[in-house]
């Protein structure tokens, strides 16, 4: 499935009205007013979960935020209409590419509604990254029109649900609904915040195009509302937020696996982004701090991970401890394994000050994968026959647990040395019935060469044990080594 949103944006950037905008105007009903202005509010971001329009006008400020000239006008309905328009767009793209699933009619709608959800057999990339990206479009449409994180997640769910039932002729997909909604929220919030960190609405026009490419739906909303023509501040929830990034490139040596019997060596490139600091501060604002990593190498697109903070609280007398709840988005493929999914993690960490600007960060994590995908190429023991993978799909789905830990030595703001351990348990509910336990332990060393330049080496050992139902267990393992140069910069 292709995900081409640039033409959509360009159509608006050039000022041409879109037909669906007229449709939106026709469909937007009279705004219902909330009647609970005096209702008590808790000190939680859940207070922003309204799903209605605030009393008064559609103009900001709203929801108790301070005066905010840069905040988008809150519009409850337009994101839902835009989600339907996005579905038309994606369906059109599928039509253009000759996908049989794009041929929909009231007959297919009825059949889908009567059948409910099933699992689909699309490629790993499509299901674990393509659908979350599609979900991020729905989600950022909500954010672009002034909705909160949780309200925008509902928009993503709506967009996903309507797509599954009405814009494809195969039965609605259970995994798509979850990946598009939950993954779309994670990916979308990252896109929304990174775009706003780059965008300068004070008239300089700096990085506008980059922001547009990252978050096209917000660019679309700003263009059609003429917010892009106004000199404003940034929205309150992103004002003053910056990020640092680090680019790393080098070579990766991957040891043999049960699938790839020969070791491989290839170039890799990855970018780490740290938005805010997930290890300090008190926060109940989703993704007010997050970290994300995108990597290529050993394949066209090998990794995209997001850890977005939903809740953070310092603990301890000197506030050196930190309790954090993360929303996790994982997408990892390499010769040793493929793993992807949506989850939540609790991290308990503590920083030890070692003097001379050096500190040690220790943390343990545990949580759940509400839906994980894991490749299922492990063969059962000799003499045991298990059914073929479903429709030749090479990965399986299931919920599970996740756990890990990290020890990291830092000097200044730079990581010098780290030891990490990560474990994923996947209880397969669709595919070759098994419980997979994937573990990886890694070590990394970085040596600064110049102010923002470092060289380094990393090693990782991967081990998996899969317990097949009535077919015994099977294990796989593979080492990985990397040599690299890293360039970091804070914006």
């Amino acid at each position, binding site marked *: 499935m292709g995900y081409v949103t640039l033409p959509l944006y360009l159509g608006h950037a050039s000022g041409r009205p879109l037909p669906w905008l007229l449709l939106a105007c026709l469909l937007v009903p009279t705004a*219902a007013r*909330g*009647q*609970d202005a005096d*209702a*008590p*509010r*808790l000190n*939680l971001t*859940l*207070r922003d*979960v*309204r*799903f*209605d329009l605030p009393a008064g006008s559609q103009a900001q400020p709203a929801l108790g935020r301070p005066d905010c000239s840069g905040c988008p006008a809150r519009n409850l309905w337009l994101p839902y209409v835009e989600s339907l328009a996005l579905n038309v767009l994606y369906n059109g793209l599928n039509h253009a590419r000759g996908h049989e699933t794009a041929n929909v009619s009231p007959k297919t709608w009825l059949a889908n509604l*009567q*059948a*409910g*959800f*099933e*699992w689909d057999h699309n490629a790993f990339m499509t299901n674990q990254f393509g659908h979350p990206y599609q979900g991020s479009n729905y989600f950022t449409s909500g954010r672009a029109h002034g909705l909160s994180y949780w309200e925008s997640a*509902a928009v993503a*769910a709506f967009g996903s*649900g309507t797509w599954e039932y009405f814009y494809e002729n195969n*039965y609605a997909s*259970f995994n798509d*609904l*979850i990946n598009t909604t939950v993954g779309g929220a994670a990916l979308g919030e990252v896109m929304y915040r990174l775009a706003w960190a780059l965008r300068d609405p004070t008239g300089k026009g700096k990085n506008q195009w980059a922001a547009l490419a990252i978050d096209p739906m917000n660019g679309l909303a700003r263009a059609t509302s003429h917010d892009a023509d106004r000199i404003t501040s940034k929205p309150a929830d992103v004002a003053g937020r910056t990020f640092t990034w680090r680019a790393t490139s080098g070579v990766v040596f991957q040891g043999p696996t049960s699938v790839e019997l020969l070791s491989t060596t290839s170039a890799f490139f990855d970018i780490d982004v740290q938005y805010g600091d997930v290890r300090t501060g008190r926060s109940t604002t989703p993704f007010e701090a997050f970290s994300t990593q995108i990597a290529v190498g050993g394949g066209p697109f090998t990794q995209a991970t997001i850890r977005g903070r939903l809740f953070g609280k310092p603990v301890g007398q000197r506030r050196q401890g930190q309790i954090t709840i993360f929303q996790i988005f994982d997408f990892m493929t390499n010769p040793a394994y493929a793993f992807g999914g949506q989850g939540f993690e609790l991290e308990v960490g503590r920083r030890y000050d070692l003097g001379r600007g050096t500190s040690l960060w220790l943390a343990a994590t545990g949580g759940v994968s*509400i*839906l994980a995908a894991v490749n299922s190429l492990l063969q059962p023991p000799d003499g045991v026959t298990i*059914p073929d993978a*479903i429709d030749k799909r090479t990965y399986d*789905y*299931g*919920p599970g647990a996740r756990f890990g830990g990290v020890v990291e030595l830092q000097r200044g703001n730079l990581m010098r040395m780290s030891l990490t351990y990560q474990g994923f348990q996947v*209880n*397969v*509910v*669709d*595919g070759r*019935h*098994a*419980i997979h336990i994937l573990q990886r332990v890694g070590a990394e060393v970085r040596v600064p060469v110049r102010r923002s330049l470092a060289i380094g080496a990393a090693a990782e050992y991967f081990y998996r044990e899969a*317990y*097949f*139902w009535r077919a015994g267990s099977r294990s796989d393992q593979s080492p990985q080594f990397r040599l690299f140069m890293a360039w970091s910069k804070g914006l």
Partner: protein
Amino acid sequence: MTGLPRTIAIVIALLLVPATALAQAPADPNTPATAPPRLNGTQWLAKHLWIVGGAGYAVARAGCDTCDQAGVYHDSLSVTVTGGVHATPRVDAGVEVHWVALKVTGGEAMRTTFILATAQVRPWVQRGLFFRTGMGVGIVGRGLWSPIGPDLAPPFTTNALALVYGTGWIFKVKNRWAVQAHATHYVASLGELTKTDGTTMTNVVGNYWTVGLAIVVR
């Protein structure tokens, strides 16, 4: 109601009874009249308690790798019990237990038990409309099976992943009491399923559409 559902219902009831009783506890007399009373944990829970209990009519469809593409439909009574708190005037959150029957290939119907973390949002506080969603496990028959867990006699399901979404309307009756009408769609991915006749079906997914009425304490 027997077996696991009964056990769960008893546990929930036992957990909720003390909190319900505390709902009538008087405010601390030392608290100034103008300031809202400061509540301890139990008092807060009692004040924010959210309980829903009701029944409805359900249609279930089972699909699997080897099942008929059209699926197998079965209608039955469904029972719902939810316990939780209202986190904000608009948002309720809690744990939902739902029972409904499913037929996989005809013959004997099997009970599905849903245990879900659920959240309910009311867009307008003064109006009854609500939307609900939740996620958790859906269990057919005796319970969960694991290759590293205890042996179970069939029928049982080996894995489960479930979600629910739906909408409804709450009609307020008096004080914290209300009645709600709801329509919900439950989905349970039941994995591999072994029936009493020994046959095994792979990758079973159950869809359950429910309409019902419930009594609400909120």
